[in-house]
């Protein structure tokens, strides 16, 4: 670590980021082994158990044929939304505060999408048939039904995963080159390959700027479409409380909301454990806090609209589903969600709260607990209260489902821990850009300080 931010030099950033990659303490290995062990125990073992004994190991049954697996799928897709989307929006609006945190936020997007895609495989029960969703000529002479929202989902998530991977990679090429020059052995070979021979010429920077901007412009509408399409998995059905026209914006806002909260969590961890306190500052938490406040108000508004239109419709199926959600078996979860996602974030109205790291961490975790609950309630309350009372039922997740849910967090943590040792988790060149350029004279001040 170096001195105050205004004393930072280009070389300091370089050294700090390279150090975060090449120097690994015992705490990192403990964290990695623990996360990997939990992934095996909580995620893969229960999944293999389910594969061996059948999908009956999960608590899903008629009428609740969807459960925590799909709730987790929506949750992780949602969590993926703020990383790349926020990064793209802040890039084209030229917001310099994005630069210290966007790389990790984009990684969050990438790994959340990976976890979400795995959750689909867990949910379908027989993942060895997952290739049936792909359009390829086969001996059955069948093709996927592109009129189904589920196929919309396959296409949207594939595109988003591809776009997010390319976006994070493109932005990292100059930093791979910088790390390449400071490493030896297998690391040097790996970064040489990943940097593609980048030299930092004026032409390369010019081309990167344009390509990166085009990618950002392409990815923003894509991100909006992805969660809209995820919402249509539900809204295109005729189940009460799911057949809602407001679901697409509701899901998009919810996704950005939980994703922004996820970024706060990740930023806290990087700041605390990777020694990036100089780059991830109160300013970032302050701005993210403001964003969380705006998003919480939007999310609350949409929830109020959903309740009001359900009540005002007077349709028996709709009002029954609404009453069940607010006052039925799952009501404690509903009010927990309202507390965590609509009431608690109002604290972000106070600057002293937004700039306090630990309270912001607690709030971000609370918001994501609330957002997971929201996804669970969407799936569980609607399917268990459909039109006919003889089709009503209850859904309670089994131990296998709960374990796999917890395991997804361990899986995400494992992937993220691997990421911070491969990718420069703070963008060196973009942080340097936020600094004043080195000046010609006096010689002692030949390197700049942050603007």
């Amino acid at each position, binding site marked *: 670590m170096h001195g105050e931010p205004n004393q930072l*030099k*280009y*070389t300091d950033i*370089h050294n700090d980021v390279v150090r975060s990659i090449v120097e690994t303490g015992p705490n990192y290995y403990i964290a990695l082994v623990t996360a990997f062990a939990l992934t095996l125990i909580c995620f893969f073992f229960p999944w293999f158990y389910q594969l061996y004994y059948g999908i009956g190991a999960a608590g899903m049954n008629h009428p609740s044929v969807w459960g925590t697996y799909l709730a987790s799928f929506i949750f992780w897709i949602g969590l993926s939304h703020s990383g790349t989307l926020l990064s793209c929006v802040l890039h084209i609006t030229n917001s310099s505060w994005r630069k210290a945190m966007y790389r990790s936020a984009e990684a969050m997007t990438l790994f959340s999408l990976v976890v979400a895609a795995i959750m689909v495989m867990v949910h379908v029960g027989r993942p060895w048939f997952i290739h049936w969703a792909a*359009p390829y000529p086969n001996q059955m*002479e*069948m*093709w996927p039904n*592109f*009129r*189904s929202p589920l*196929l*919309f989902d396959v*296409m949207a998530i594939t*595109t988003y995963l*591809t*776009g997010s991977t*390319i976006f994070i990679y*493109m932005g990292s*090429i100059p930093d791979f*080159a910088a790390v390449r*020059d400071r490493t030896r052995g297998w690391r*040097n*070979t790996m970064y*040489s*390959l990943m940097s*593609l*021979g*980048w*030299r*930092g*010429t*004026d*032409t*390369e*920077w*010019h*081309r*990167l*700027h*344009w*390509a990166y901007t*085009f*990618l950002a412009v*392409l*990815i923003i*509408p*894509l991100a909006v*479409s992805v969660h809209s*399409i995820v919402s249509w998995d539900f809204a295109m059905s005729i189940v009460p409380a799911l057949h809602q026209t407001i679901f697409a914006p509701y899901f998009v806002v919810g996704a950005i909301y939980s994703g922004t909260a996820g970024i706060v969590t990740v930023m806290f961890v990087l700041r605390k454990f990777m020694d990036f306190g100089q780059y991830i500052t109160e300013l970032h938490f302050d701005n993210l806090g403001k964003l969380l406040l705006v998003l919480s108000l939007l999310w609350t508004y949409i929830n109020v609209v959903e309740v009001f239109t359900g009540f005002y419709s007077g349709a028996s199926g709709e009002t029954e589903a609404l009453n069940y959600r607010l006052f039925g078996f799952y009501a404690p979860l509903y009010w927990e969600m309202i507390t965590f996602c609509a009431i608690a974030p109002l604290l972000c109205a106070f600057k002293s709260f937004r700039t306090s790291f630990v309270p912001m961490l607690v709030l971000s975790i609370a918001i994501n607990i609330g957002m997971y609950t929201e996804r669970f309630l969407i799936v569980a309350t609607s399917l268990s209260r459909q039109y006919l009372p003889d089709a009503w039922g209850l859904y309670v997740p089994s131990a296998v489902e709960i374990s796999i849910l917890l395991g997804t967090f361990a899986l995400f943590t494992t992937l993220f821990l691997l990421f911070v040792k491969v990718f420069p988790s703070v963008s060196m*060149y973009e942080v*340097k*850009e936020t600094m004043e*350029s*080195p*000046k*010609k004279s006096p*010689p002692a001040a*030949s*390197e700049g300080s942050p603007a």
Partner: protein
Amino acid sequence: MKNFVVGLFGDPESALAAAGSIQTADLGTPELMSPVPMEGVEEVLGEKKSVIKRFSLFGAIFGGISGFLLAAITAVLYAHPTGGRPIITFPPYLIITYELTILFGIVFTVIGFFVSARLPNGLWTAWWKQDENRPYVPEAAVNKFAVSVTCTSNESVQQAEAILRTAGAEEVRDVTEEN
């Protein structure tokens, strides 16, 4: 003889001024290397144009057409009549069209970037050693600003070195000889 004379500068203004002087002295268009994108390069070395947007546009159009055709042709190949609706239905296929428009737009943008930035550079031939036809100074990835001049004679080497030193270069290197 083809040499690369590279001047290393501690600040971008001096590097830009040196690049301008090199161009004025008719020693060709110099190449700038820097740890961050430099402002004012186009004012000195002239406007840069990129073909990336054409790649993006082509990719988006190609993807859009491919997306619609994929959905429409597969529907015809395995006809699944539903409630008397047409086999090729526009509203759902527009979503597939939209997604593939974006997907191919992204992929072709990356291809356009690689083509126009001439990357990968030396990936398969010499990743352990920089391509000798393209000079590289590792300091330019950290905190220095480099100006590279391609020289074809001893006179031009001497002239370039003199201009770089006059402009305030902290160090002048003959990169080819080093390699």
